[in-house]
């Protein structure tokens, strides 16, 4: 028994280790590449230990940009950050309000309203890209943050998530609030939002990453370099026609692009794990 368990443990750890190596190696490679100069990477014999060019590559990427994407990466990061936070916050606001309406108010066509929201799950931005582009263009929102953020805010996922959560809150809490003289808005503000903090945190993480990783939509509606997001920036850096790709700058940018989502996950995860542990209704 003991023997076979040890054997199984070894097998399990071995499998996990292989998994981690497979996932982590490309990331390591990117970090590695950001510490060499272009020539070292191009000749194909990049060492597996970090080089000494990090001090050159990072400031250059951050503050002056590559040859192909001339904008500094710091600016792209600001753009991406504004877009990702805008989408995450917008989605949370819209979906918590619509879930509040769908769960707690009875109005004509409430079920229909819910199903209409639900159906939009099947209509991601790629499917409705032409009409959406047309509307944003007609509103004169090309090359604006509003244009980047607004079409991506509507969220069936968030509405669904909040709806499921609201339905687990006992009705008596609403009734107690009514007797305590809290109207719908007070109930929302004083009871629902504090109780939803963990759901909000979870949704923020998911939607921040979703927003940060957007490629197609920003590609379509931003033409000005100053509105460029980091994901687009990376893509521009590696598709060159007549010049050598500056791999060291592209990789540096890729590494920089990873930092904010990682920070959000690390920071928010602690918050919502704590919330999950503490929650009791």
């Amino acid at each position, binding site marked *: 028994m003991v023997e076979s368990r040890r054997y199984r443990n070894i097998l399990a750890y071995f499998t996990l280790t292989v998994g981690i190596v497979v996932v982590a190696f490309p990331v390591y490679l990117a970090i590695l590449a950001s510490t060499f100069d272009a020539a070292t990477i191009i000749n194909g014999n990049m060492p597996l230990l970090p080089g000494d060019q990090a001090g050159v590559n990072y400031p250059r990427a951050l503050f002056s940009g590559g040859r192909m994407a001339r904008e500094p990466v710091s600016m792209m990061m600001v753009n991406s950050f504004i877009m990702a936070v805008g989408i995450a916050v917008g989605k949370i606001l819209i979906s918590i309000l619509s879930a509040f309406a769908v769960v707690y108010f009875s109005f004509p066509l409430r079920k229909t309203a819910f199903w209409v929201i639900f159906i939009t799950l099947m209509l991601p931005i790629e499917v409705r890209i032409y009409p959406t582009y047309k509307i944003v263009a007609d509103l004169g929102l090309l090359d604006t943050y509003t244009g980047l953020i607004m079409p991506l805010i509507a969220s069936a996922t968030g509405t669904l998530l909040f709806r499921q959560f609201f339905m687990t809150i*006992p009705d*008596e*809490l609403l*009734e*107690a609030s*009514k*007797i*305590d*003289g*809290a109207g719908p808005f*007070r109930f929302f503000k*004083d*009871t629902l939002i*504090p*109780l939803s903090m963990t759901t909000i945190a979870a949704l923020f993480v998911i939607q921040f990453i979703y927003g940060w990783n957007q490629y197609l939509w920003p590609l379509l509606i931003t033409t000005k370099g100053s509105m460029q997001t980091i994901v687009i920036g990376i893509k521009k850096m590696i598709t060159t026609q007549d010049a050598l790709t500056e791999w060291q700058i592209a990789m540096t940018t890729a590494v920089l692009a990873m930092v904010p989502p990682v920070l959000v996950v690390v920071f928010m995860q602690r918050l919502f794990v704590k919330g999950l542990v*503490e*929650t*009791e*209704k």
Partner: protein
Amino acid sequence: MAGVTLDTVRKIYAGNVEAVKGVSLGIEDGSFCVLVGPSGCGKSTLLRMIAGLETISDGTVNIGDRVVNEVEPADRDIAMVFQNYALYPHMSVYDNMAYGLRNRGTPKDEIEKRVKEAARILAIEPFLARKPRALSGGQRQRVAMGRAIVRKPQVFLFDEPLSNLDAKLRVQMRVEIKRLQRALGVTSIYVTHDQVEAMTLSDKLVVMSGGQIEQVGTPSEVYRRPETRFVATFIGSPPMNILPGKVEGPGRVSVGGQVLNVTDMRDGLPPGSAIEVGLRPEDVQAGGSSSSTLAMNVDFVEELGATQLFHGKVAGAEFIVQASTGQIAADTRKLTLSVDPGNVHLFDPETTKRLGRV
């Protein structure tokens, strides 16, 4: 302070389901009224209509001399204690109690005074800073009551507040609720399916069934003189025995050929007509030389410590006798039961109404 008056109150749900079928009831100022009945009898619905959590389909509800049919729950001057307490999980005990007062714009020092006072009465002062999850069931129950007390309402509404507590705590909290209600003198309406709670707490006991009131009275009235067979079998534990019988003449009925004398019997019942004879398990004595006796075959005996329950059959119908332990030998197989004519309850088999003196 105010009494509560209900006038032919109805609740009709979608699909024409009538949950409350025209209930009229007067609850005097300062009294403790308990609504009791099996689940689905409409007692909770009635309470929720008084609270304003359900709309009133028909009839009127008065609190004091004000019709409150269209008044918001918060403006009805009531406070409610819920079965699952419904404490705000994210607020401290203090905030739970203060929340309602803050919403009404009560001055801060007044809130503090009232919360402290309520906490003192309920002995929850050490927990004011805690969150509800850090409290035991009994403590949460107290906080829920504290939340009601600080409002200084005209009426307290209790919706099965003790059913989530364990048996021992339930008895303790029951006594406390009673004491508190006496001390504060606030009109209280209390819903329960537990007849012990109903009997012990109420000044006025309302037995409900099928959306209607079966009987209203003091607990002893309801126990001594149940108006319907339902009340007779619902109040009292073990329940009243009901035997099929026949009218023999004025003050005389028979059960399986055994004649019983009856004190409380309506005049003019035609001899030979069917009648139901109710006898409480604690109201019949084994042996004795009374002129009214019943023969019983004992099947088995349940031990309750101080008393024993003899289960068996009288004239083919299930029958239970309760006797002090030792009064009847536990291995007895045949019993002769003597019946005091004053302890016989008669019911109409058709209408199930009591056939007592008018």
